[in-house]
């Protein structure tokens, strides 16, 4: 019996189409990746088991770097303008409102705010700046800042975040808390890196049994 001979097929596949798809996806991901904007203030945050994602817009962020220097970031540009105007009105600082509006963070005493805003954006580096004075309860300009922030956010929801460095000492943190308490701010969130609950702990058992974390 003569069996019909199957024609031998080539094993090479045309990769061009696959290559096209791969690179299309690659360019998509490269373009959509939002790289961390070069941090002007270097901070390594501690980790926690909290699984709640930090808000990434319309926040007010207070940063404590490893030397305990305090910086303030206000995400909302409109609020920045309000704050600059109210500072000018109450403290008579004569700050440049457009410059304040474009400043990504504040890291100088009120008296040096004018010269701080005169520095170009690229040269504002956390390690070179004095930070907001927040030494103890008497010399604590953060109280003033939180007050104006509070006024600017009156009626609106204030997402207050605190981002501290691993190596920052506790007094720096405490002085920030003092500034919060003085302004009747009792709720805030601390930015951390996510980590898993240690195996065997109660929270671990809870999350294993499907209970949702409450916070």
């Amino acid at each position: 019996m003569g069996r019909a001979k199957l024609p031998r097929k080539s094993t090479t596949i045309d990769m061009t189409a696959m290559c096209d798809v791969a690179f299309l996806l690659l360019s998509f991901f490269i373009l959509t990746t939002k790289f961390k904007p070069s941090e002007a203030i270097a901070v390594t945050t501690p980790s926690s088991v909290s699984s709640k994602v930090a808000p990434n817009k319309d926040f007010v962020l207070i940063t404590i770097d490893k030397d305990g220097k305090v910086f303030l970031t206000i995400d909302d540009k409109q609020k920045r303008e309000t704050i600059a105007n109210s500072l000018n009105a109450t403290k008579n600082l004569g700050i440049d409102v457009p410059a304040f509006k474009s400043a990504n963070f504040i890291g100088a005493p009120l008296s040096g705010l004018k010269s701080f805003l005169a520095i170009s954006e690229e040269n504002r580096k956390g390690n070179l700046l004095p930070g907001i004075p927040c030494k103890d309860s008497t010399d604590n300009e953060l109280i003033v800042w939180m007050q104006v922030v509070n006024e600017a956010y009156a009626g609106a929801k204030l997402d207050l975040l605190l981002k501290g460095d691993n190596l920052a000492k506790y007094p720096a943190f405490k002085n920030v808390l003092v500034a919060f308490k003085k302004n009747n701010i009792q709720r805030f969130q601390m930015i951390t890196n996510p980590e898993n609950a240690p195996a065997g702990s109660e929270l671990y058992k809870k999350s294993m049994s499907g209970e949702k974390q409450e916070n």
Partner: protein
Amino acid sequence: MAELDTSGGGHKKGPGVKKGKKLSTRVDLTPMVDLGFLLITFFIFTTTMSQPTAMKLILPDDKVKPEEQNKAKESGALTILMGADNHIYYYEGQLKPDASNFLSASYNGENSIRDVILKKKEYVRSVAQDPTNPEKDLVIVIKPSSTCTYKNVIDILDEMSINVVKKYALVDIFDIEEQLVKKSDEAAKSSSN
């Protein structure tokens, strides 16, 4: 009229002139695809993994009068004190004048603060009068000394959520405790040298 030579540069094929070997235009794209997908995976992972999380903390109101404040039962109270160089101390109930119940623990490993908290929890549960809410009396007081770091504070607050402690408070340290922490820190330092 002469025809235009479109073949360009002296490749006029005459009889007996050897033809240049025609090279295949096909390139093996497999390594390129490999690389492409490797980069894709890299970008996929980096875009989703770096979301910072936030832990919530609610501060107590300082303006509440002392008589309106919640009183903690002595049997259910555990005070944790943090010192320099990741040292950690604790005492149960009230600090005795001779500081005999002032003990040291560690963040992890042997004699960890987690075990201390769990033991305390166990104890509170065993003496609880109200079976519906056996952990009602458990209160953990966190007192960071001025030498401890922000990381230490976060670690302890995190420990509270790991061990599902419902009641805890971040409280200012007393001078006497601060001194005690300092002394113990120094003692630990000199013994390790």
